[in-house]
């Protein structure tokens, strides 16, 4: 809304290049975003409003500059790549343009756009969680985590994280404490500045919203005629209460207004309900250390993903313990002849099922979501299925009669009950249903 930079306007950058304004793309609370020509490429320029740089614009600038120098921690981040010189008390930074097909979380909340499947929601959630895991692991925190930070592709769950200007080494103040309704209780109460554990809380809010299209702290209690700042402090701070809190129902869903909760919550697997109950339990509200760590999220989400099967009618069915079940939509019986038993749970062994790297022992951060095994069917006889070794190392397999076999990369273990095989630290057993 402020006076815009006009097309053709040139700005020099720190790395000795030049950004030439092409056109205005959009605006947020902190500034405008333009498409620019930059070193022969089209890029995005975030250009701050005078009031968009926090309390100390110089420190804010230094932080963005540090982030440019440091480089992006993970491809999910639309990371600052260069910063501009100052002009009339403001500056900007260069980042990649968001590709087509990505939408903001608010568009999902308002159902302007919808995910194509629950698997896609899980993928989006996994991308978000693993990106923050990487960020937190290098000692950074995001500090202003809210629904405006994400661009998500509803078709494949890919995620781009924007607004990385507030990202800072944990403990460094950026002058921004966060967006109302997305801040952790201790930040709302002014007890401390944002840090990695408050990021965790805000991230859980986003994950809950992606699945339930409901804000986790906004049940009956939030339907107040006038949200005064004091009330806001209570509902999101000192008296924050999960909409599904099993003990205190005073913030339970309103049957007319929070109908999504009744539709989604009972369908979530117990371990997903549990991780949300943990993330928004009274313990986690008051003690940031009690919040689920990113790895716990990854494990729950990966399990959830493995346990969803698609019925012929298109409905997604949540299976339990890899067992056959009946589609709640068309009443067809879903045939699941085999299941793959891990130490803690079993998943259906049907064509397309994947075993992820994080399901077979601890691993490097960027490998968490790498499929290591894939259930495939035979080209000339689709009724014959097996598990392909997608890694570059051989596996050890053992037949029911006790014979040992080596499974080379690319090779397939036939799906037969009783066979066990070991990938990294996990031994998986094929069972028939």
């Amino acid at each position, binding site marked *: 809304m402020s006076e815009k930079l006009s097309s053709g306007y040139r700005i020099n950058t720190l790395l000795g290049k030049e950004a030439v304004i092409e056109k205005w793309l959009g605006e947020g609370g902190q500034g405008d975003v333009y498409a620019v020509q930059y070193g022969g490429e089209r890029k995005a320029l975030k250009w701050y409003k*005078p009031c968009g740089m926090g309390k100390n614009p110089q420190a804010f600038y230094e932080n963005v500059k540090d982030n440019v120098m440091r480089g992006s921690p993970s491809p999910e981040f639309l990371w600052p790549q260069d910063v501009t010189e100052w002009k009339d008390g403001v500056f900007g930074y260069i980042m990649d343009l968001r590709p087509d097909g990505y939408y903001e979380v608010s568009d999902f909340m308002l*159902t302007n756009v919808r995910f194509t499947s629950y698997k896609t929601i899980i993928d989006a959630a996994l991308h978000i969680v693993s990106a923050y895991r990487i960020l937190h692991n290098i000692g950074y925190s995001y500090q202003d985590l809210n629904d405006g930070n994400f661009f998500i592709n509803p078709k494949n769950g890919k995620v781009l994280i924007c607004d990385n200007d507030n990202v800072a080494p944990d403990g460094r103040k950026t002058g921004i404490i966060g*967006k109302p309704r997305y801040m952790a209780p201790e930040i709302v109460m002014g007890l401390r500045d944002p840090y990695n554990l408050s990021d965790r809380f805000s991230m859980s809010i986003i994950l809950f919203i992606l699945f339930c299209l409901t804000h986790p702290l906004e049940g009956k209690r939030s339907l107040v005629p006038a949200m005064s700042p004091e009330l806001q402090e209570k509902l999101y701070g000192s008296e924050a209460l999960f909409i599904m809190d099993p003990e205190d129902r005073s913030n339970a869903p309103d049957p007319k207004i929070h109908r999504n909760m009744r*539709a989604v919550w009972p369908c979530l697997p117990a371990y997903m309900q549990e991780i949300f109950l943990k993330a928004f339990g009274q313990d986690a509200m008051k003690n940031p250390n009690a919040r689920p760590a990113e790895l716990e999220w990854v494990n729950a989400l990966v399990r959830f993903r493995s346990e969803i099967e698609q019925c012929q009618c298109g409905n997604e069915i949540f299976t339990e313990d890899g067992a056959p079940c009946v589609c709640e939509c068309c009443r067809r019986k879903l045939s699941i002849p085999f299941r793959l038993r891990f130490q803690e749970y079993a998943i259906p062994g049907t064509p397309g099922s994947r075993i992820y790297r994080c399901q077979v022992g601890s691993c490097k951060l960027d490998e968490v979501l790498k499929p290591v095994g894939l259930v495939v069917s035979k080209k000339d006889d689709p009724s014959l299925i097996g598990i392909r070794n997608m890694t570059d190392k051989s596996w050890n397999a053992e037949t029911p009669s006790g014979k040992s076999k080596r499974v080379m990369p690319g090779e397939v273990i036939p799906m037969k009950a009783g066979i066990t095989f070991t990938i990294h630290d996990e031994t998986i057993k094929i069972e028939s249903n």
Partner: protein
Amino acid sequence: MPKIDELEATARRALHIFYVLDTSGSMTGTPVATLNRAMEETVEVLRKQAKSNADAELKIAVLEFNTGARWIQPNGPENMEDFIWEDLSAGGLTDVGAALSELDSKLSRKAFLNSMTGAYLPIIIFMSDGYATDNYQKALDEIRQNKWFARSTKIGFALGENPDMKMISEVVGNSEAVVRTQDLDLFARLIKFASVTASMMCSTSRTSNQDVTGADILKEAIDQGSAPESIVENVPVDVPESSADEKDSASDGWDADDWE
């Protein structure tokens, strides 16, 4: 799993924006024409924003005053997404008192503030270019007892050669939230910037736990509009601590019977 297509949009609290606009005889000609164009543009921007605002459901109501006061939306605030600006015309007296009484009567849960999904504190934008022709003091005393008025975010615009800065500052409650200008183009830009900033109040990341006030919003609008800071004058006004106000901060947030 439930069908993703059958889920409903996330519930949003309402954010009411009230425009209280002087259309007395002195606004005749260019002033009212500029006001109409400014409001048309403001509404256009707000409408676009409302469509993707997941933080608040924007609602708008316009109260014009001249000889008496009249709501343009007599049935209550309209959804910004469906709202279309209708041009106002100028003529008549400057019945500020009538406007305040009318506003007071509708700032209530039983009248205009009845959103099922709850609401944020309202925003009130007040504009005048002259001196009240009725006795507004009694109406002002009364509306100051209205919790919603007392706690709303208020912004004032004083136009023309001879606006009553004291009256406007009293209505707004703080002269730092009042802009005085004779430059109609500047007014048009500032009312747009202020409206947009105010409507994004719930969506903007904060630098501190302090509340955003009308003066903060205006300061931002002035920055954006590259207007001189001198258009905000310091007019000492005497705003009695509203009893409604004290009761609220002491008691359980809002008043108890509003809870269910």
